[in-house]
């Protein structure tokens, strides 16, 4: 299998869709001549023309709203919102409309809309460009929320997103576009709601998604040197969530830590902790912990930003304490 970047993996899925489904079109700010803020659609305008690849004005609300309209009318739009931060300008369309039109029409209307956006911090982009708001969207019934961690995930999950009959919030991580991994050249689809055991282990489960999977994995490597065998779970989608997969892992290891860039208070980690105690309480040897970002707007300075983000050393320390029976 060739080693390609996360960016290239996304491109392969999009190109496949454009080539194989006449109903698919892409729109968003700077996706045409510019090729997208993260160069995901580079060259597509030349290849597929303006009918399929459309630059929009800086109007996120109408980008999503018109995407909903076109989807209701039978097309398969993919809208790109640059970053999850700017999706906030379209949140009424996403939360009040895309997610509910099917339900409110008694199942008569469908909104098969793919909304791509970049999230995550760690790139010195400041408080308004570094959000991890996936938990907000995962909170909303009617939205599927996808958080790929690897190039393999990126292609397989994006392929599945286009098969969906529901709105999909597809959240890429700004720091992962250049990361590389093995990806089959052929078409494949990864199911939503199926977590991946990223690294098998027996002593503690480190649960991550998107960028935090890699942090968890590096922490697991360090823990190995300390004689601790950590299992790393890659959630792949937050909604649907692979509750069974999480519970199965925790039943095996009896300890768990959730790792996420997001703020701790009210974050998605809290949901996972609750599910574990609901479904695996009797198997736990220790409280389920969270290693999250600090509850602050993300500062720009590298020194401040790194202080506000979860660090591998912190994960290792929590895991060591958990395994030794010391809890904070």
């Amino acid at each position: 299998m060739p080693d390609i970047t996360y960016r290239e993996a996304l491109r392969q899925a999009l190109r496949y869709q454009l080539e194989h489904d006449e109903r698919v079109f892409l729109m968003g700010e700077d996706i045409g001549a510019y090729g997208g803020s993260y160069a995901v659609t580079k060259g597509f305008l030349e290849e597929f023309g303006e009918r399929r690849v459309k630059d929009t004005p800086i109007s996120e609300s109408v980008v999503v709203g018109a995407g909903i309209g076109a989807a209701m009318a039978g097309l398969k739009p993919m809208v790109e919102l640059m970053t999850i931060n700017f999706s906030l300008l379209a949140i009424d369309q996403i939360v009040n409309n895309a997610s509910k039109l099917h339900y409110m029409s008694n199942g008569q209307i469908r909104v098969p809309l793919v909304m791509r956006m970049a999230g995550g911090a760690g790139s010195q982009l400041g408080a308004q460009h570094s959000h991890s708001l996936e938990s907000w969207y995962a909170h909303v019934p009617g939205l599927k929320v996808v958080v790929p961690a690897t190039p393999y995930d990126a292609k397989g999950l994006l392929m599945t997103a286009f098969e969906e009959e529901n709105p999909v919030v597809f959240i890429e991580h700004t720091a992962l576009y250049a990361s590389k991994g093995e990806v089959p050249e052929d078409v494949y689809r990864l199911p939503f709601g199926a977590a991946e055991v990223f690294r098998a282990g027996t002593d503690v489960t480190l649960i991550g998604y998107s960028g935090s999977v890699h942090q968890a994995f590096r922490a697991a490597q360090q823990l190995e040197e300390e004689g601790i065998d950590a299992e790393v779970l890659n959630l792949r989608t937050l909604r649907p969530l692979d509750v069974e997969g999480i519970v199965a892992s925790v039943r095996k290891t009896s300890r768990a830590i959730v790792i996420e860039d997001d703020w701790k208070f009210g974050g998605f980690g809290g949901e996972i902790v609750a599910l574990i105690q609901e479904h695996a309480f009797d198997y736990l040897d220790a409280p389920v912990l969270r290693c999250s970002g600090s509850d602050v707007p993300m500062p720009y300075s590298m020194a401040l930003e790194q202080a506000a983000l979860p660090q591998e050393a912190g994960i290792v320390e929590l895991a060591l304490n958990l395994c030794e029976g010391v809890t904070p």
Partner: protein
Amino acid sequence: MVRVNEPRPRTAPEKLHRAMYRDMLLSRELSDRMFALNRQGRAAFAVTGQGHEAAQVGSAHALRRGTDWVLPYYRDVGVLVALGMTPRDILLGLFAKAGDPASGGRQMPCHWSWPEMRVVTRSSVIAANLPHAAGIAYASKLRGLKEVSVVYFGEGATSEGDFHEAVNFAAIHKLPVVFFCENNGYAISESSEKQMSVLHVADRAKGYGITGSTVDGNDVLAVHQLSRWSIDECRRGRGPKLIEAKTYRLVPHTSSDDDRRYRTRAELDEWIKRDPIDRFRARLLDEGTMTPDEDAALREQIKRQVAEAVESAERAPEPAPEDALRHVFAEDGG
């Protein structure tokens, strides 16, 4: 008796013109340096407005410093220079140092806060500061104060709902706010035909029942005159104004951009010929407001001033990591 070699006394307009020219030069030099520092790997990010100096400096000199409210956008180095922010303070922000007066290293570079000059930090999120300006102007009106707010933004920002909602709100309440658009023809890669089907941003004013005017944004005196008039009108309670200054950015959108992907070298060259600083210099020399020697000395002095500021700002201390947790909520005493 006037002696040779002694500078002759200057008239008020001459003083103003020289001050504006100096601010334009300083803004350009500082901006060039900020870009260079990024290219040398000494600053993580840079965003500047080379080419916009006439629009920025001309309008800022029409403000009442310390009385009027200013909501600049990320390109407005010239506005801040004209308000009197020092190169060192601007550079402390670029380097995100503890002493960055705008944010202590929290905000992206060129997102200024400066309470003494009534500058409030802008949102990186396009157009979000237009409603803020309307709100500040609303407060000025409610309190019966003769303050004007000036909010700056690009033509791309006029595609956002916030632009329309803010202008409409200001128009309904006849608020003392000037909406100042620096139309440089591009929003990152997208030319303005992709943003609007009207030719001029100023045309949008009609839809809200306010006055909109277009001005050559590379002519500092024309910008100054229109800004003066608009601000005066606002101060007299005659309602908001929309100004569109047509200009061009001579640099990429930010240090992360490659402008060769969407515009031609020939187009850039055309605009380099219309460089607002060269234009103003020619005029000042022609009118005898300054001599070539004075010009050379001034440029030399500005180069030195910026170089010294870079040295000092780069050596300043980094923010302390534990400081990241402060100022989420107002602490005792703010």
